[in-house]
């Protein structure tokens, strides 16, 4: 490589000026690379936004990025498989970073009945303050109010469930479940709030009551079904959930969301694979144009290449010069493509309204707004793919240029 250093300056000068000898051809290729890079990053951002939304939607349904349960709870989510509310070392751990919020809650299957219909539901006994720290948005209440405390005697149901039960705000409904001794535990409770969720399925499933109110109804003291915990970024959970597990101890089950919902994790993995495939496919198409540009550029300069060889330029330097032209073209394309991607995707991060497709997308756990997510990792991926494939595609014309016989090259008309 040291041999190339003295020539590096002139090689760069030659590469740069040669690139702009046929500026129209170079510009067309440059535009193609810019659009290709932009398309790769845009696609990755949309995919990432879509998968993020699906995962977040899933986590809202779970909810929490890490959950602590009784070891049998996931097989039988009845109140019999409850645990103590957090205390001691676990409480200390939950009140410190990287944990940003946690909630201890009752979560049991139950029946809800109005005077017209009944439905199977998931009954959540919550402390509203804790739920807000976990990401529950009280502004999602479309009628009435959310619970005011763990001892609130009211019930908050979803908008869709209200429709199904043909009930409304202020009406009394009956909820029914089982206590730890498998006796029926029921209570008539007034609907004090109706919430809307991103997914209709959530609105139909989750019914919120005060934690203490439901503990009393189910005949448990300070017991809860689960402790749900959240951090800053669901993608970083793997780095901190073992600390929670350590604080919890072996007698309880501590599970990260990837394990709770394998589908969500496989979606994330699929997204990464898709990104690589699409990026490679887009650039493979582009690489034909790149090879053509370089082959033409070399073909037009055969005599010049012969002259440079005759003057003492080594074959390796000729190859290096052609590759340098490719690197400059790719580098410019990457720079402009990335800038274009940042300029166009960042303003869209506030969300793209896809409500026209929302019903179809709901099946996949998405809401009616798509939030493209511009990530450095996606930009790095497209940059690496473009550079690696671009250089591979440039090797053939570069190698051919370096193989010319100077005499034959100089004699070319």
């Amino acid at each position: 490589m040291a041999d190339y250093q003295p020539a590096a300056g002139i090689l760069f000068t030659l590469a740069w000026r040669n690139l702009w000898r046929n500026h129209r051809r170079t510009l067309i290729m440059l535009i193609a690379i810019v659009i290709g890079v932009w398309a790769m990053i845009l696609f990755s951002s949309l995919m990432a936004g879509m998968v993020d939304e699906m995962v977040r939607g899933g986590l809202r349904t779970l909810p929490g990025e890490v959950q602590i349960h009784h070891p049998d709870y996931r097989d039988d989510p009845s109140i019999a498989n409850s645990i103590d509310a957090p205390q001691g070392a676990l409480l200390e751990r939950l009140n410190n970073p990287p944990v940003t919020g946690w909630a201890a809650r009752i979560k049991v299957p139950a029946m809800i009945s109005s005077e017209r219909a009944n439905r199977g539901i998931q009954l959540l006994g919550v402390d509203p303050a804790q739920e807000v720290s976990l990401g529950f948005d009280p502004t999602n209440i479309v009628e009435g109010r959310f619970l005011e405390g763990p001892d609130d005697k009211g019930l908050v149901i979803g908008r869709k469930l209200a429709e199904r039960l043909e009930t409304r705000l202020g009406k009394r409904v009956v909820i029914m479940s089982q206590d730890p001794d498998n006796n029926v535990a029921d209570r008539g409770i007034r609907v004090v709030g109706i919430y809307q969720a991103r997914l209709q399925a959530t609105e139909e499933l989750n019914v919120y009551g005060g934690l203490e109110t439901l503990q009393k109804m189910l005949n448990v003291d300070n017991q809860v079904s689960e402790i749900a915990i959240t951090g800053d970024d669901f993608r970083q959970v793997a780095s901190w959930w073992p600390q929670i597990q350590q604080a919890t101890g072996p007698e309880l089950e501590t599970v990260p969301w990837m394990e709770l919902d394998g589908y969500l994790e496989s979606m994330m993995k699929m997204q990464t694979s898709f990104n690589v495939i699409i990026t490679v496919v887009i650039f493979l198409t582009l690489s034909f144009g790149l090879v053509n540009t370089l082959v033409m550029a070399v073909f037009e300069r055969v005599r010049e290449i012969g002259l440079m060889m005759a003057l003492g330029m080594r074959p390796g330097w000729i190859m290096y010069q052609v590759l340098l032209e490719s690197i400059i073209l790719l580098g410019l394309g990457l720079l402009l493509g990335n800038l274009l991607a940042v300029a166009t995707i960042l303003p869209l991060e506030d969300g793209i309204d896809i409500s026209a497709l929302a019903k179809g997308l709901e099946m996949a756990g998405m809401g009616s707004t798509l939030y493209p997510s511009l990530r450095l990792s996606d930009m790095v991926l497209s940059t690496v793919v473009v550079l690696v494939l671009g250089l591979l595609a440039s090797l053939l014309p570069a190698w051919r240029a370096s193989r010319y016989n100077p005499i034959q090259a100089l004699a070319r008309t």
Partner: protein
Amino acid sequence: MTAIRCSQLNKTFTQGDQIICGLDDVSIDIEEGSFVCLSGPSGSGKTTLLNAMGGLDKPDSGEIQVGDKRVDLLGKSDLADMRLHSIGFVFQAYNLIPVLTARENIEFVMQIQGVPTAQRRDKAIAMLEEVGLADHEDRLPSQLSGGQQQRVAVARAIVSGPTLVLADEPTANLDSTSATQLIELFVALNRERGITFVIATHDTRVMAYCPRLIRMEDGKIISDEERTGKSGELQPQPS
């Protein structure tokens, strides 16, 4: 001292079904500081011999020694290094790199050699002055006349101080005045710097200046004529 020694060089080319003899048992010694013309009609083998001397082409058999190097035994990279450091080339046409200015073309060889920027710039400007193109340093080849381009090519050929300059039909595309100016520049460089010049030409204007004239035909040397006097002392002969 012998600058170039060629012994029993043979070279054939295949053109379609025909085998053409490029060099046929050519042996020649050229002394350092001499000014030699290779002449003959097209296809006589003068360019083939010149290319073999410069390591641009390999003979099928025979030995070539330039200075202390056996050219016929060197690999591609070593040949490139030899051309870079020891030999200056001037070709018939397409002598300059079109995207580089006159000064940059002269700097080109020095840049590959790794000469520091300031030093090579000073040298290039000095060379441009020497060939009478001091005001043309920033012009691209397309902005220079044929004669001016050849002068820049000569400046590039000698700027790094080679002991040998090989010129292939350097005046072929030049008008009479430019051709005379160019050959007189060769003569001056030969006399003042002691550079060995080997010029392949069928231009009688050039031959008229040469103390040694080697005539070739069908790949063979048919005459090797030594004329009295140094280059430049000879008067141009009428063509």
